[in-house]
């Protein structure tokens, strides 16, 4: 087992008896991230891109350095391809509305998938209705993966955009984004990847991935809330209109008209999350000090242990790919006769935090034939002990409800 237990000391919330298994919803923050934000706010804070004074210059430098760090982290060619937004949801809405309203017409098709989070589904529904486009979905196979053959046969010249997750927040499935991108591009469609779960847990190189847009959030990767990233190729970003107007995104403004600033600033209206950008920078430094390959390896090892030990608990069914290939550290489960919310409460009494509910993926829940699951998700600060505590809690739930 990849031993990362030494990292626990960096996370003030992770103390003895705390088994935090909800990093898929939001991760905990290590001291270096908290200190970087604190230090910046105490010594270098001002608004960016505005003041002629030294503090503003320092803040602008820190903010733009974060942009460069993100670009490097995901293998972007140019830091201008990094747009700072509020989070994954804002990033995906920015593409759906900023790109979609400009480039989609009546009769066009949008393809999403059956396993999407609402954030990569609802914006496309909204835009499809506005422009009169049709929304289709890549089906899920019986092994909880995307049916790529079916996807290929769905493609045609009327498909203008394919919106797909990089890693399912419910199943852990990591769809073959590269293959999907190649197929989509052969038909001239743009590819948008919801990477909220992928980027925090896996090494991503956007050039290898082949997508046109990629969205993720800092708070799921040891960073702060309030900042996320929309990456796009320059080509794709140039096809996009600003989704929000306001300060900082303009070149010139008259009473009736305005022209846009250069990319990326035209997509960053208003004062951006400056302290949070510094936090994201520190979070990337922290993750890379561990090594993204090791982060993923650790998640997979914990997943292997969880699939085995949780799978042994009487009455438990796990939803997700059976093997460990192309699968991240997310284990969704139900227990016969015990509703997921009851599991959540009982596990909490055992110090185990899991997410119970529909995980903002109601169409997938319907497809699975359940109303809710309990989900354990892993990150660098988790150990086998957390899984053992989960198993003890699950057995207790079975006893309490008289199911075992």
């Amino acid at each position, binding site marked *: 087992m990849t031993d990362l237990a030494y990292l626990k000391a960096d996370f003030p919330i992770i103390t003895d008896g705390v088994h935090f298994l909800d990093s898929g919803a939001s991760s905990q923050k290590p001291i270096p991230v908290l200190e970087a934000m604190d230090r910046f706010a105490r010594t270098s804070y001002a608004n960016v891109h505005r003041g002629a004074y030294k503090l503003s210059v320092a803040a602008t430098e820190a903010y733009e350095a974060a942009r460069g760090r993100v670009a490097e982290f995901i293998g972007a060619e140019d830091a201008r391809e990094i747009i700072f937004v509020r989070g994954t949801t804002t990033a995906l809405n920015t593409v759906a509305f900023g790109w979609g309203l400009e480039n989609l017409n009546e009769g066009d098709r949008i393809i999403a998938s059956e396993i999407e989070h609402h954030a990569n589904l609802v914006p496309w529904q909204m835009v499809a209705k506005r422009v009169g486009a049709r929304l289709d979905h890549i089906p899920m196979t019986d092994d909880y993966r995307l049916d790529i053959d079916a996807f290929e046969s769905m493609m045609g010249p009327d498909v203008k955009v394919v919106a797909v997750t990089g890693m399912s927040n419910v199943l852990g499935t990591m769809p073959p984004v590269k293959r999907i991108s190649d197929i989509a591009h052969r038909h001239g469609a743009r590819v948008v990847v919801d990477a909220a779960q992928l980027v925090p847990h896996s090494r991503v190189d956007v050039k290898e991935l082949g997508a046109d847009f990629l969205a993720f959030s800092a708070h799921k990767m040891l960073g702060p809330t309030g900042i996320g990233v929309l990456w796009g190729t320059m080509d794709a970003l140039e096809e996009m209109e600003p989704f929000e107007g306001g300060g900082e995104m303009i070149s010139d403004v008259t009473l009736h008209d305005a022209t846009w600033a250069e990319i990326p600033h035209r997509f960053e209206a208003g004062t951006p999350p400056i302290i949070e950008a510094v936090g994201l920078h520190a979070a990337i430094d922290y993750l890379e000090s561990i090594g993204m390959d090791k982060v993923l390896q650790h998640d997979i090892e914990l997943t292997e242990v969880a699939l085995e030990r949780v799978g042994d608990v009487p009455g438990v069914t796990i939803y997700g790919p059976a093997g460990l290939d192309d699968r991240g550290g997310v284990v969704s489960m139900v227990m016969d*006769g*015990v*509703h*997921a*919310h*009851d599991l959540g*409460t*009982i596990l909490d*009494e055992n110090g185990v935090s899991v997410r*119970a*509910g*529909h995980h903002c993926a*109601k169409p997938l*829940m319907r497809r699975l034939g359940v*109303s*809710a699951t309990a989900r354990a998700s892993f990150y660098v600060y988790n150990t086998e002990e957390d899984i053992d505590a989960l198993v003890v809690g699950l057995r*207790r739930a079975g006893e*309490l*409800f*008289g199911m075992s």
Partner: protein
Amino acid sequence: MALEELYREVILDHYRTPRNRGHLDAPDASAEGVNPLCGDEINVELALEGDEVVAVAVEGQGCSISQASASMMTEAIKGKTRAEIEDLTAKFRSMMSLDGEGGLDLDPDRPGAVLGDLEALQGVRKYPVRIKCASLGWTVLADALAE
């Protein structure tokens, strides 16, 4: 043990064997409600004779607390008038601290004296996120009666 307080045997019994489950042939009033955060669903149908609820049926899905609470509710309201049900609902909401007045005083020496089996749900108060589960059926009942 707090968990045993929450999951009293009577609650688990109503969860496993819900009473008055299903649909009425010709309901005089009905309503449905969802807790959008967790997805719990309850549908309540009522048959009324004048002011009195003579039959009630509940359908739905969700956690033990939401479904058991609705099941207990059906037993508690059958044969009662609107005024009696309003009084019962007020007492229930007070027991769950939903009226902002700090909770109904139950007699610890005479369990069940005030609200019958429903008193088993008072353990839910210690789990604030679950209070909405317990109250869902009652909210839907109020909607049905307001029709």
